[in-house]
C-alpha cells in the first residue's frame, strides 16, 4: 500500500512538474537541474515550514512574484508630471524607446521587477541569530540581493545602486525588507514605468503555505509618484528544479534592433 501511494505521489509530482516519465533520462532530469520546470500546484500541501528557532523558513527555489502589475485593493499609481513625461516618451510610437530598457542589455532589473526565471532565497545562518538574507537570481542576469538582518540602519548617504541598500526585520512570520539607495536606471516594467533615486521600497514576504510566498511591495518615490502605492504578488515554489547558469551577456544580440515604443513580451 505504501509503495503504491509513493508511486502515485511520484507520478503526481512528475505531472505537476510538467514531465511524464517515459525514460530513465527524463526521470533523471526530473530530479535535478532543468528537470521540473513547473511550479508547485495551486494547493498548498502543507503549512509553511519553520527554522529550528521558530522563524518562518522562506528558503527554497521560487518562481514569479514582483512587478508592479497588481495594485492592492484601493491603491492607485499616479505619476508626477516628471515621471509622466518620461513614460510618455517611452510609449511614443514615433520613438524606438523599446531599445532603451537596460534590461535589454543584460543589466539588472532592480526592485521589484522580476524575470521569468527562478530565484532562491537563503537565510543565514539558520542556527543562531540571523545576519543576512540573500536572494539569488538566475535571470535576467546572475545577480543577488543582500538584505542585512543584523539590526543595522541604512547608511546616511548610500551610493545609488541597482538593488539599493536593504535592511530586514521580522514582524511575526512576515519578513519586512526596507530598501533605499537605488539608482534611477532600471525600469519598473517593460513599458518603462520610471522612478528616481528617491525610491524607497518596503517589501513584505510571507510564506503562507509550503508552496506560496506572498510578496507585497510598497513603492514610495515622491519624485516619480504623487503618493506611495502598494502592489501584491505571489511566488510559487519550484520543488523539483534548481537554479541554472544564465549568462545573459553570453549571446545577447537584440540591443539596438528593436523598433517602436516600449512594450511587453506579449505586445502589451
Amino acid at each position, binding site marked *: 500500500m505504501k509503495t503504491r501511494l509513493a508511486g502515485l505521489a511520484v507520478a503526481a509530482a512528475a505531472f505537476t512538474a*510538467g514531465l511524464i516519465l517515459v525514460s530513465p533520462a527524463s526521470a533523471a532530469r526530473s530530479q535535478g537541474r532543468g528537470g*521540473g520546470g513547473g511550479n508547485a500546484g495551486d494547493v498548498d500541501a502543507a503549512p509553511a515550514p519553520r527554522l529550528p528557532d521558530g522563524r518562518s523558513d522562506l528558503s527554497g527555489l521560487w518562481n514569479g512574484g514582483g512587478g508592479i502589475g497588481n495594485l492592492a485593493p484601493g491603491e492607485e499609481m499616479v505619476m508626477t508630471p516628471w515621471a509622466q513625461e518620461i513614460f510618455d516618451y517611452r510609449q511614443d510610437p514615433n520613438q524606438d524607446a523599446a531599445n532603451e530598457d537596460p534590461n535589454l542589455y543584460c543589466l539588472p532589473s532592480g526592485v521589484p521587477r522580476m524575470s*521569468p526565471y527562478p530565484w532562491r532565497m537563503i537565510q543565514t545562518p539558520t542556527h543562531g541569530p540571523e545576519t543576512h538574507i540573500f536572494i539569488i537570481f538566475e*535571470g535576467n542576469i546572475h545577480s543577488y540581493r543582500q538584505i542585512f538582518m543584523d539590526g543595522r540602519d541604512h547608511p546616511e548617504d548610500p551610493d545609488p545602486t541597482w538593488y539599493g541598500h536593504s535592511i530586514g526585520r521580522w514582524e511575526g512570520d512576515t519578513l519586512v525588507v526596507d530598501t533605499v539607495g537605488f539608482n534611477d536606471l532600471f525600469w519598473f516594467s517593460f513599458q518603462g514605468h520610471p522612478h528616481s533615486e528617491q525610491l524607497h521600497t518596503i517589501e513584505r514576504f510571507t510564506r503562507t503555505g509550503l508552496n506560496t510566498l506572498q510578496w507585497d511591495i510598497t513603492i514610495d518615490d515622491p519624485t516619480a509618484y504623487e503618493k506611495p502605492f502598494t502592489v501584491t504578488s505571489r511566488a510559487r515554489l519550484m520543488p523539483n528544479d534548481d537554479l541554472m*547558469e544564465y549568462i545573459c551577456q553570453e549571446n545577447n*544580440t*537584440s540591443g539596438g534592433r528593436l523598433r517602436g515604443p516600449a512594450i511587453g513580451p506579449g*505586445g502589451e
Partner: protein
Amino acid sequence: MKIRFAVLVGIAIFMNVSVQTYAHHAWSAEYDANVQKELKGVVTRIEWTNPHVRFYVDVVDENGVVTNWDLELQSANTLTRNGWTRDALGVGDEVTVNAYMARDGSNRGNSRGNLRLADGRLLFAGEPE
C-alpha cells in the same frame, strides 16, 4: 537517440503545464508578428546560449543564391526546462521553419511554433506571442 529525444520533447511539451515564455525583451518589437516566412534549408551552426539559442540555416532560392539566416529560439534554460537538449537540432539537419521576420530588415528571424525536420519530426519552439 535523436528520435527518442524528439518523442520525449513532443510528450514533454504537451504535458507541460508551465511552459515559460521568454521575457528578456519585447519580442514583437524586434520581430514583426505579421510577417512570417517559410524557410527551408540546412543547419550550418547552432549556438546553445542565453539569452537566446540561435541557429543558422542556409536557404537556397530559386536562382541558386544561398542566404544564411540567423534564427532565434527561446533561452537555453527555457528550452532545457521544456525538454530540449543541446543536440536536439544538429548541424547538417534539414529543417523547415516558419520564421517571423526581423523589423530591421536583416536576415534574422524568430522561429516560433514547430521546427520540422526532413524526416518529419517536429521540435516545438514555443508559442507565437
